[in-house]
């Protein structure tokens, strides 16, 4: 049950999108998000939607898997829709009690809804097609120009790598502890909030102890290998810009150009 969390999950594959340089993919995702805020009419959203659909089709990640990522943020989307629908002032279409729906509000709500959905799907395509290690390597590479002004790029990337690496481990640990306490008759499902919160103690205490134990073991293992970030480190798999990345870059620029032109001209 607890293993079925998909947000930020990698979907193994060997497609063109999977193989793209993580640095390019990160930049593309950021620019895509910016583009979503540049767009201000439905034609623009149609273009953005089409571009994303093409990328997903090439990545061969099943649609079911992508839509699953929307589930946890569903409430946020609905909330945003409601706020926009009822709060924007303008020409009133429908009115009841203290609520009124305006034409501008309807338009705004539709925009925000599409924007949010595309934003979430767009960024989940990045994590679905990029290994977590590739992702952090990419972030490190992109942050490295800022090292000069004191941004600890490598340390940040290392911390992210470790955090990502241990999510599955801690989930597994949680699963095991829950089962072990259930085997001792623990009940997490019934009772009021206070009882349920109290029922979490037998899970949280062992989980914290495990987390500290794992962290200590890892620190020891890194120490034993003389890990240090001070000296200039080289990589086993250095990232190289390949031909496909050039193609990807050109497509990205083309997409941005269309979006900007659409905004300016129409």
């Amino acid at each position: 049950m607890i293993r079925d969390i998909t947000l930020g999950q990698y979907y193994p594959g060997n497609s063109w999108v999977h193989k793209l340089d993580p640095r390019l993919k990160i930049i593309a995702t950021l620019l895509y998000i910016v583009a979503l805020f540049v767009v201000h009419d439905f034609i623009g959203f149609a273009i953005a939607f089409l571009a994303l659909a093409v990328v997903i089709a090439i990545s061969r990640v099943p649609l079911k898997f992508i839509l699953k990522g929307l589930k946890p943020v569903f409430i946020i989307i609905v909330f945003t829709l409601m706020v926009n629908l009822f709060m924007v002032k303008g020409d009133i279409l429908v009115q009841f009690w203290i609520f009124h729906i305006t034409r501008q509000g309807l338009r705004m709500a539709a925009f925000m809804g599409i924007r949010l959905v595309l934003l979430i799907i767009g960024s989940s395509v990045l994590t679905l097609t990029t290994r977590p290690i590739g992702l952090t390597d990419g972030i490190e590479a992109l942050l490295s120009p800022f090292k000069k002004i004191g941004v600890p790029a490598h340390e940040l990337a290392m911390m992210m790598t470790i955090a990502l690496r241990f999510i599955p481990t801690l989930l597994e640990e949680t699963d095991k502890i829950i089962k072990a306490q259930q085997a001792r008759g623990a009940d997490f499902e019934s009772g009021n909030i206070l009882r349920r919160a109290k029922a979490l103690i037998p899970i949280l205490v062992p989980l914290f102890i495990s987390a500290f134990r794992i962290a200590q073991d890892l620190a020891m293992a890194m120490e034993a290998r003389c890990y240090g970030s001070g000296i200039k480190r080289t990589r086993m798999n250095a990232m190289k810009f390949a031909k496909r990345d050039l193609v990807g870059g050109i497509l990205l620029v083309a997409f941005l150009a269309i979006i900007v032109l659409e905004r300016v001209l129409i």
Partner: protein
Amino acid sequence: MSIEVRNLTHVYSEGMPHESLALDDISFRVEDGEFVGIIGHTGSGKSTLLQHLNGLLKPKSGSIIIDGTDITSPGVSMREIRCKVGLVFQYPEYQLFEETVAKDVAFGPSNLGLSQEEIDARVEEAIRLVGLDYERLKDVSPFELSGGQKRRVAIAGVIAMKPQALILDEPTAGLNPKAHADILDMVNTIHRTESNIILFVSHNMNDIARMSDRILVMDHGRLAMNGTPEEVFTREEELKQMGLALPDAMELTMRLRRKGMNIEQNCLEISALADAIAQLRG
């Protein structure tokens, strides 16, 4: 009390790209008072099987009948099943959480809704049964104990629920030789005093051969063998193909036979082999 498993099948991550068949049509029966050893290579499905026996995992198909009740049918009280079947996980000491040993052991019994006197009595009994000094340790934090002692406390936490079947998943993993021997003695003591069913998973073939009435061999999610230690450990070739070893004495017996020594008995223990060789020499 008996445990019967019929055509049990379990699939992990069903419908996902990494779907895998963890248990494939498993059937067996364990009678009252039996001591059953379970062996199998890592990933052969042992732990998955055990978690079905007290309802922690639900099978895809098949049934599990505990003491006459099919626990896969709807409306069965899981609390009752977990009271009947006690499961001790691998490295159970990682599940300790209370401030004192006595409180931690009391967690199981108090979940059963027993009276305070009954709980106290069971806690004391369980701590003594796992070979710990009740008076000295009851008010000590479990986190101050040694590895072997922590594990005993964790096992006591399950025993205090007085299960009619006790399942132990590699109870000796990661312990030093002394603590290892102590835990085995403890398991034997529990089996004798409580006269319950014991299902015991281990990678140590010597322990399995010495302690079990019967052995289940798991391989790639299937039940590959089900027989007495002698029946199982004479199928050397098949076991080795599954990546499993023989008990030391049996291995030596087989090698001596190949060298031409005429040892008739299948010796599961070194003392038995020594006797057989002495007899041969006259």
